[in-house]
């Protein structure tokens, strides 16, 4: 690339940052000023790089994360702790296009549903794991069966399910058969990358600490409590592929872990790190580049609907009316859209006709009084429970909610609960919750699958792993909707969303914004699914 090209691209980049161009817009403008797409892609390091790997990767990036993962096993990559590291080292059959959020091939090049319960994936050829093992259908089938094994019962199986079995048809074709029709199986498989079969069978003790994958980065070292390191993979298949949706421009990566948002931001300001994740709005503003991005995370109030107080729909409606979502968004979370449902517009089954529950303290108080007059024991205690450190300002939010409930005549208090204890009480099904518990849980819900069905499964259904709600009619509707595709699926799940909404099964609050602090010279765009992929980053 000639010097004049570089100068024009740098000028364009400055303009892009100032005006917030998307990567696609950037490439379009690059073409308009006569800079070739590969040339622009070299500088921006993004999916616009349609051709082969350009300049040799160089430099090092330090990413300051809020939590250190417990383990780097592949099935943990669905969690927000795991995937910032894992998805750079390991890859899945599918990923999402960062611009459109559509599913795209990663280790698979194409896929189709051959019958109601079978999806066929055609695999990418010429891919090898970092340990030299060839990637093929046998390895893919093994990886899928291992990850989604009912015997292993990994958390991803619990949360993402369903029962499935993968079989190699030929060297680069694998069939995945599900127990019941599952039109969104590809969305589920995007969720977890595939491990090395060799590593799982011969050295399983290394799985937690030393993941081996096919990805653009090779895992090097984990110094627990301090850092993780990886280096660019010179043999990555993406170097010569047109559909890699990124390229390696950074040679080394180091992830460090700082629990406090202010310290993560300070690291970026002090140039000790180039990327900081999950910053508070105030801390983010101190960094050279603050990116506030929509996400698939929705903060909501999960109500113990079996409780003598919250079993009354008037009480649930009152709770919904007592929260000023706009104020919460602005004053506590520094942004975010008030939510009408537990998923965002990107999800199949999102019902655009529903509005967030309005804020009306007068009506809320009246409803509580009516319920009390009919004998609802409104003085029974309600606990607004929040998990320690689950998101920024969660304690303040829980305090606010408890205060509002007291204002409308209920008897509530907030409680910050340490992680293990909270999870023990949160991940309990409706049928196992003590009737008098009286919890309002305040976890965020992330629907990376972008299909309401997983949300229904987890939170709306009588048997849901985290469900404190039960409506047999809704369960019936779900069972009927689950195998549907296309428009029929959209309409069926819109109806289920409406049923849950009108019954006040939960109180959605906001679609959570996520704040990232970047160094001045780091080029990166946030993804809706929250993945942090080094192949989508570059330095100017």
């Amino acid at each position, binding site marked *: 690339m000639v010097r004049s090209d570089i100068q024009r691209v740098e000028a364009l980049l400055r303009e892009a940052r100032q005006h917030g161009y998307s990567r696609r817009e950037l490439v379009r403008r690059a073409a308009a000023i006569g800079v070739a797409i590969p040339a622009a892609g070299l500088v921006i390091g993004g999916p616009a790089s349609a051709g082969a790997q350009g300049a040799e990767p160089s430099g090092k990036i330090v990413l300051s994360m809020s939590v250190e993962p417990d383990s780097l096993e592949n099935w943990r990559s669905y969690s927000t702790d795991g995937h910032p590291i894992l998805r750079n080292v390991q890859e899945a059959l599918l990923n999402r296009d960062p611009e459109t959020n559509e599913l795209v091939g990663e280790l698979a090049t194409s896929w189709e549903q051959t019958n109601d319960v079978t999806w066929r994936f055609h695999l990418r050829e010429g891919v090898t794991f970092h340990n030299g093992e060839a990637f093929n259908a046998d390895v893919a089938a093994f990886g899928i069966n291992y990850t989604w094994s009912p015997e292993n*019962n990994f*958390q991803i199986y619990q949360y993402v399910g369903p029962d499935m079995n993968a079989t190699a048809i030929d060297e680069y074709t694998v069939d995945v058969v599900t127990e019941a029709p599952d039109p969104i199986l590809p969305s589920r498989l995007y969720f977890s990358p595939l491990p090395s079969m060799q590593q799982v069978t011969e050295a399983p*003790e290394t799985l937690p600490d030393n993941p081996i994958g096919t990805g653009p980065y090779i895992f090097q070292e984990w110094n*627990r409590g*301090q850092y993780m390191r990886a280096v660019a993979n010179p043999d990555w298949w993406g170097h010569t592929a047109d559909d890699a949706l990124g390229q390696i421009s950074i040679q080394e990566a180091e992830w460090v872990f700082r629990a*406090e948002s202010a*310290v993560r931001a*300070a690291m970026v300001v002090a140039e*000790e790190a180039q990327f900081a994740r999950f910053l508070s709005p105030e801390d983010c503003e101190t960094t050279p580049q603050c990116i506030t991005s929509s996400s698939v995370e929705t903060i909501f109030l999960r109500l113990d609907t079996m409780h003598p107080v919250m079993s009354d729909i008037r009480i649930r409606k009152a709770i919904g009316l007592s929260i000023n979502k706009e104020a919460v968004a602005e004053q506590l979370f520094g942004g975010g859209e008030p939510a009408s449902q537990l998923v965002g517009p990107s999800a199949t089954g999102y019902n655009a006709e529903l509005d967030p529950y309005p804020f009306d303290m007068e009506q809320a108080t009246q409803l509580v009084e009516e319920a009390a007059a009919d004998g609802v024991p409104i003085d029974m205690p309600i606990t607004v429970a929040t998990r320690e450190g689950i998101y920024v300002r969660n304690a303040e939010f829980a305090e606010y909610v408890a205060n509002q409930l007291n204002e409308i005549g209920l008897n509530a208090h907030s409680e910050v609960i340490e992680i293990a204890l909270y999870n023990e009480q949160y991940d309990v099904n409706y049928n196992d919750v003590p009737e008098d518990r009286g919890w309002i849980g305040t976890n965020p819900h992330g629907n990376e699958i972008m299909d309401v069905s997983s949300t229904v499964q987890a939170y709306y259904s009588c048997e849901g792993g985290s469900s404190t709600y039960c409506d047999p009619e809704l369960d019936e509707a779900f069972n009927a909707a689950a195998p549907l595709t296309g428009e029929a699926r959209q309409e069926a799940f819109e109806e289920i969303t409406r049923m849950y909404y009108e019954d006040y099964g939960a109180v959605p609050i906001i679609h959570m914004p996520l704040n990232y602090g970047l160094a001045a010279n780091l080029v990166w765009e946030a993804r809706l699914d929250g993945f942090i992929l080094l192949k989508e980053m570059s330095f100017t």
Partner: protein
Amino acid sequence: MVVMVKGRSVIARYLIRRLGHSIVILLGLIIVVFFVTHMLGDPASLMLRPEATDEQVQALRESLNLDDPLRVQFTRYMGDILRGDFGESLWQRVPALPIVIDRIPATLYLAGVTLLIAVPLAVILGIVSAVKPRSITDRIVTVVSLTGVSVADFWLGLMLILLFAVQLGWLPTSGFGGPRYVILPALALAVRPIGRLSQVVRSAMLDEMSKAYVTTARAKGLKQRVVIFSHTLKNAAIPVLTLAGDEASVMLNGAVVIETLFGWPGVGVLLIEAIEKRDLPVIEASVMAIAVMIVTMNLLIDLTYSLIDPRVRYT
């Protein structure tokens, strides 16, 4: 010579007796940890994920021999502990004790540097204050001490980061490494001990300086510097040493807030993480490691008393 030999044998007997006490304390701790662990509920259920199946819970119970009678489990547990075998971390899937031992140097490093900052500064402030009681200097030192005791170390740590790391760029914001990395966390940790110790130094010095021998020393024409450092301070050192030991115990427990803030990989933050993850082997190993460090430190402090004050007898 006889006195010296006698003195050495007295010290040796004292040392043996104290070691015996320490062992008793540690054994008692082991017993308490065992029974508390089993009183919390089924250890297997506690250690596994909430969504673990009954089969997985039972498999873990069998692998840990939790279905054996309690006295059999206890005997085996004691034997394992005495061999240094705390089992395998369910979180990291490696032996628990090495995980803890890996963290001890960082904790000792931070505690040591903090005390190196805190004790001399506290002594100086306490002396300055005691030499001119109720003066402006005394009042300023008292205010500084009280501020040190009152300030939240978390807030102080953040302020130090913003000033010295972000604004001035003199030191790193956080992390673990060479001398530059320990300064800010040690400063943040040192403020409270400086506050507490300086007041104790002041009180002890005032007490000593009111005694007749000090009057005699001054009457003999000794300089103030000699009176303070050669006579008074030594006599005032015992309570200061005791409190310094107490502060050191706090640091050896792991200064969790400061370790978390600065990303310092010490025992404290490890213990908190293990508790959050219900990793009982690591919890037990951490508790024992901390107990051993504290017991050892207390023993060393007790032995130091006689170096400071020859009147101290080991009985």
